[in-house]
């Protein structure tokens, strides 16, 4: 056993030794240790380097407030965790820890040379230099600065772990399982209320874990704790979550909570498939929240207060009582608050020689003096520390009477325990947007006005006695249960003997700092912000506390100022000569402690990152080698290459087959809405630009939909199934917004219309068949539909059966060929497709994807909303005035079409382009110029919206929008692309079969 491990006591398991290493050196620890306690048990204090000056740093706390002792934890491939607090990392066998932010080693760190320049590197120095010569910023200064910065190691490998999340609901959420939280849980749970109790530590108890000598209602505190735990665990309505941090308090009592499930476990590599559930995000909605988050001890600000071995007084007490570790053989205490005496006495009791207690106060209670006397501990009243020594660990301090630099006395020690009073942990309360009030007696802010259904109890509310925590916790638990709807349960009160000492703290004592000469007195230990830095910021005119924070970066490190903010505030208040209450506070923001990206992403990784919607025939496409593209959430077949074919070859073949015989493609992803009711036609009249009343039953029409701003919003074919029933189709990605928009107008603008909407997108699989032989292919398999050319004309819809399943058969065409769209119930989409492929063999049927679809329609000059349009085109711009029902009084967007800029003469209009060189396929998105000119900025008159090689025409074709394009037919224009200006002629956008004869076969 090491010389720093006590012989007995603590909550570690002495029977279970663990091996671990730090920077390659092996050590032994015990089950129940934290990495910090295990290092201290081995006499290791120096574990880190600070951010800016690379100063040696030790372990300053025993909990989550740790600002200094950040290390890397290596748990094998992909499991390296950077900037982990040694104080919260539980020890496991084989743990490997590394120091960070130092090179080549912790002890010999080249970066520490920066400390030489530290006077020049005064706060905010980087705003004032590195500007000359100008180019040096990019090439010299910034790269150097960047390499100096960045605390932790950057990740290099994929993380093998899993993360999960869950929504939880409860009557009472209790955050913090110290005496206050436990008493609240006991009280709240009696009535059967659903209670969730969370604590960030690996076991419940909070401060009880450091106070074995206290007695609660006559029971030893640890026995009381064990009893309480047993009782709570036996209740089905109570969930206790340890290693679980409430990190964010959001609106309406919604709390983000992270549970750590495996960071405390040993090697994970031999787990099956090397996967572990690492963390779980609990998204808790609580009827009532009890905040029992305790308080954080404040460091004192004196010169050299950052040497390894200098730590918070409670930390020493925790290491002793909880972990059975003495932080030194000759610790010295510096304080302005009674609670530090507790640490001194406990250590003395354990046989440690306490060098002295230096108390900044001139007077303290006689009881303390007496007790110290009994234990042989010297007290220096009205003294402070003005300097410390020790290269890698504190070895002595210089003490002097407060305010003087005379009568300096050097005291040898190997640890310094500091206490500057206590700061209630109001982080979550403040996040909930409660407001705080200042309490002079404790020198801290406490909760005042609540804006959510919550209450704060115990130390986080400024009540620092264990008895107060227990009793107020019990009352809060009761109230919470009642307000959450439980019947009034019975109340409890607790008596505590031997509870910790507490005292008031004079306001002027907070944040006061002492130094001789130029010694650095640190406020923010991680960001190396000193008391003088704050003074300098104030001198430079940074008077708002928010400015001071940002200029000095105090409180902006990974601990978010848990131990430093109040000291910083007090020092600023003195520098500004303004009372602390007028200085204000910076904003508390989530997370309470750093929260992994993995747990925030939760299930949204890999395949579950987003839904992939697959069409009914996707399985066939997959099996037949389709190449897919994402369209919205859908995955659609883009083309079907045969072996050795590239996309262009495949598309050329697919298009050719469609124009000469039959092409088949899946159009199931198109949005579909069934519009039913006596007013259905009138409803569509108002939604679309087109008129609908006169559309005959069994007929279809292309419909165009605008936004109220007059721009094209969506389009699609609408078929009339009966007087009061329409089958509407929309674009694939527009489907949800079109449905939402239709519902909106139906419900809120025209509630008088008798019409209803049903989304039927996924009720129907849609197989589009195009080509001169299509009728011949399907006719034999269809029942109940007369197929003759005249009874079933172009733009008609019929209902019947195909292959024995019901169909809504549209005769429509997006290719310019004879076309049918076979709608069948989705489950039969695949079967029908397979049958059609089978039957189509004799026509050399060819499946085609979205790419050919786009090509075929471009030859016909049909637009695609979102490709030819970008949300700023009117129907007239697209040459689609024919789609506007001129006689209609109104439709969505009509009024906007007559705003002056919408009628402007030179608007961009849709045209076709034919390149002079048939083989040049223009780039989509390329810009068009009226003349060849290298002047920049150039005058652009439009851009290419679609462009393809047309196999049919043996010529490249393009669609474009061009300033006043329709009046410029035949004009030569130039497309600027890499390689130069490509000339092309403006032509009609319909390239193929302008008379539409092929539709009427």
């Amino acid at each position, binding site marked *: 056993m090491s010389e720093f491990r006590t012989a007995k006591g603590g909550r570690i398991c002495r029977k279970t030794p663990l091996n671990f290493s730090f920077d390659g050196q092996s050590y032994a620890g015990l089950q129940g240790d934290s990495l910090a306690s295990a290092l201290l048990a081995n006499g290791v204090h120096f574990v880190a380097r600070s951010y800016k000056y690379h100063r040696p740093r030790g372990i300053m706390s025993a909990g989550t407030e740790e600002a200094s002792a950040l290390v890397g934890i290596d748990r094998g491939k992909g499991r390296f965790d950077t900037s982990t607090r040694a104080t919260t990392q539980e020890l496991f066998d084989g743990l490997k820890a590394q120091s960070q932010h130092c090179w080549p080693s912790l002890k010999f760190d080249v970066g520490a040379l920066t400390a030489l320049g530290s006077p020049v590197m005064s706060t905010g120095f980087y705003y004032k230099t590195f500007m000359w010569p100008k180019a040096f910023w990019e090439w010299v200064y910034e790269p150097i600065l960047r390499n100096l910065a960045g605390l932790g190691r950057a990740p290099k490998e994929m993380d093998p772990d899993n993360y999960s999340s869950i929504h939880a609901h409860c009557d009472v959420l209790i955050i913090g399982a110290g005496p206050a939280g436990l008493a609240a849980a006991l009280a709240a749970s009696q009535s059967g209320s659903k209670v969730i109790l969370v604590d960030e530590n690996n076991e419940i108890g909070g401060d009880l874990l450091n106070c074995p000598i206290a007695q609660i209602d006559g029971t030893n505190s640890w026995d009381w704790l064990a009893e309480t735990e047993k009782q709570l665990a036996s209740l089905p309505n109570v969930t206790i979550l340890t290693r679980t941090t409430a990190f964010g308090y959001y609106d309406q009592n919604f709390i983000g909570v992270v549970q750590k499930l495996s960071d405390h476990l040993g090697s994970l590599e031999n787990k099956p498939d090397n996967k572990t559930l690492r963390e779980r995000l609990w998204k808790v909605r609580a009827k009532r929240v009890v905040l029992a988050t305790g308080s954080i001890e404040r460091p004192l600000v004196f010169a050299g207060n950052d040497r390894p071995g200098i730590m918070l007084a409670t930390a020493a007490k925790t290491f002793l009582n909880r972990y059975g570790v003495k932080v030194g053989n000759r610790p010295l205490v510096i304080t302005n608050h009674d609670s530090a005496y507790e640490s001194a006495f406990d250590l003395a009791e354990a046989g440690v020689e306490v060098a002295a207690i230096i108390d900044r106060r001139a007077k303290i209670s006689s009881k303390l003096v007496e007790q110290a006397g009994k234990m042989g501990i010297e007290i220096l009243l009205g003294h402070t520390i003005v300097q410390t020594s020790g290269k890698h660990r504190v070895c002595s301090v210089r003490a002097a009477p407060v305010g003087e630099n005379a009568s300096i006395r050097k005291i040898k020690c190997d640890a310094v325990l500091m206490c500057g009073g206590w700061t209630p942990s109001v982080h979550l309360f403040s996040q909930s947007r409660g407001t705080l009030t200042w309490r002079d007696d404790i020198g801290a802010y406490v909760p005042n006005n609540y804006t959510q259904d919550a209450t704060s109890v115990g130390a986080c509310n400024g009540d620092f006695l264990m008895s107060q925590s227990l009793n107020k916790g019990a009352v809060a638990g009761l109230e919470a249960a009642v307000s959450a709807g439980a019947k009034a349960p019975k109340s409890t009160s607790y008596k505590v003997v031997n509870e910790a000492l507490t005292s008031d703290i004079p306001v002027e004592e907070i944040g006061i700092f002492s130094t001789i000469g130029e010694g650095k007195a640190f406020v923010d230990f991680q960001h190396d912000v000193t008391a003088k830095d704050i003074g300098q910021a104030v001198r430079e005119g940074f008077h708002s506390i928010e400015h001071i924070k940002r200029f000095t970066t105090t409180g902006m490190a990974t601990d978010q100022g848990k131990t430093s903010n109040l000291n910083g505030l007090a020092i600023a208040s003195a520098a500004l000569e303004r009372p602390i209450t007028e200085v204000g506070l910076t904003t508390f923001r989530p997370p309470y402690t750093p929260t992994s990206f993995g747990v925030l992403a939760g299930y949204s990784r890999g395949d579950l990152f987003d839904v992939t919607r697959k069409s009914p025939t996707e399985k066939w496409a997959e099996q037949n080698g389709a190449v897919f593209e994402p369209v919205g959430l859908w995955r659609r077949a883009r083309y079907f290459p045969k072996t050795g074919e590239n996309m262009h070859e495949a598309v050329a073949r697919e298009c050719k087959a469609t124009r000469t015989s039959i092409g088949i493609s899946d159009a199931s992803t198109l949005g579909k809405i069934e519009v039913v009711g006596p007013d259905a036609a009138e409803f569509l009249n108002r939604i679309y630009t087109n008129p609908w009343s006169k559309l005959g039953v069994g007929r279809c029409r292309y419909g165009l939909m605008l936004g*109220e701003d007059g721009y094209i919003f969506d389009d699609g074919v609408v078929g009339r199934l009966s007087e009061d029933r329409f089958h509407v189709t929309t674009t694939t990605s527009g489907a949800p917004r079109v449905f939402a928009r239709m519902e*909106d107008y139906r*419900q809120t603008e025209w509630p008088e219309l008798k019409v209803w909407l049903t989304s039927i997108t996924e009720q129907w699989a849609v197989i589009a068949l195009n080509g001169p032989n299509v009728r011949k292919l399907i006719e034999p398999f269809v029942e109940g539909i007369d197929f003759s050319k005249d009874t079933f004309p172009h733009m008609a819809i019929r209902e019947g059966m195909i292959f024995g399943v019901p169909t809504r058969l549209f005769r429509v065409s997006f290719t310019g060929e004879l076309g049918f769209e076979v709608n069948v119930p989705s489950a039969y989409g695949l079967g029908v497709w397979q049958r059609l492929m089978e039957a189509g063999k004799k026509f050399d049927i060819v499946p085609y994807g979205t790419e050919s679809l786009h090509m075929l329609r471009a030859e016909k000059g049909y637009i695609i909303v979102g490709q030819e349009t970008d949300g700023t085109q009117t129907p007239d711009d697209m040459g689609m005035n024919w789609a506007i029902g001129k006689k209609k009084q109104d439709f969505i967007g*009509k009024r906007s079409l007559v705003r002056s800029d919408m009628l402007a003469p030179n608007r961009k209009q849709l045209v076709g382009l034919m390149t002079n060189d048939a083989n040049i396929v223009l780039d989509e998105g390329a810009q068009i110029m009226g003349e060849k000119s290298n002047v920049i900025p150039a005058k652009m008159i439009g851009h290419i919206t679609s462009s393809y090689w047309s196999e049919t025409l043996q010529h490249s074709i393009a669609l474009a929008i061009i300033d006043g394009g329709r009046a410029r037919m035949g004009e030569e224009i130039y497309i600027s692309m890499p390689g130069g200006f490509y000339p092309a002629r403006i032509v009609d956008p319909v390239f193929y079969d302008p008379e539409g004869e092929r539709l009427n076969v």
Partner: protein
Amino acid sequence: MLLIDCPYCKEMRPEVEFSHAGEAHIDRPADPSSLSDEEWESFLFLRSNRAGICFERWYHIHGCGRYFNAVRNNVSEKFILTYPAGQKRPSDAQIKGALS
């Protein structure tokens, strides 16, 4: 995640079931074509956008499928009232009442 009291479901439901649908009580003019450019601009684009109490529309898209209105404080994010579409804008007195 906000909790929203849907006046149709008559339940408090989580924000992710809803989509926000803009400012409330902007009635579409009966005959847009008769409006001046200024009046039409006002309908299309001009909004109250004040900090504090706001009137807004929500769509219970993944719930009952209904559009409805809400009065909410957009600084504290607290809902004050929700009510069916088509119902008149609540009076200041009603809002005060709901707040107390």
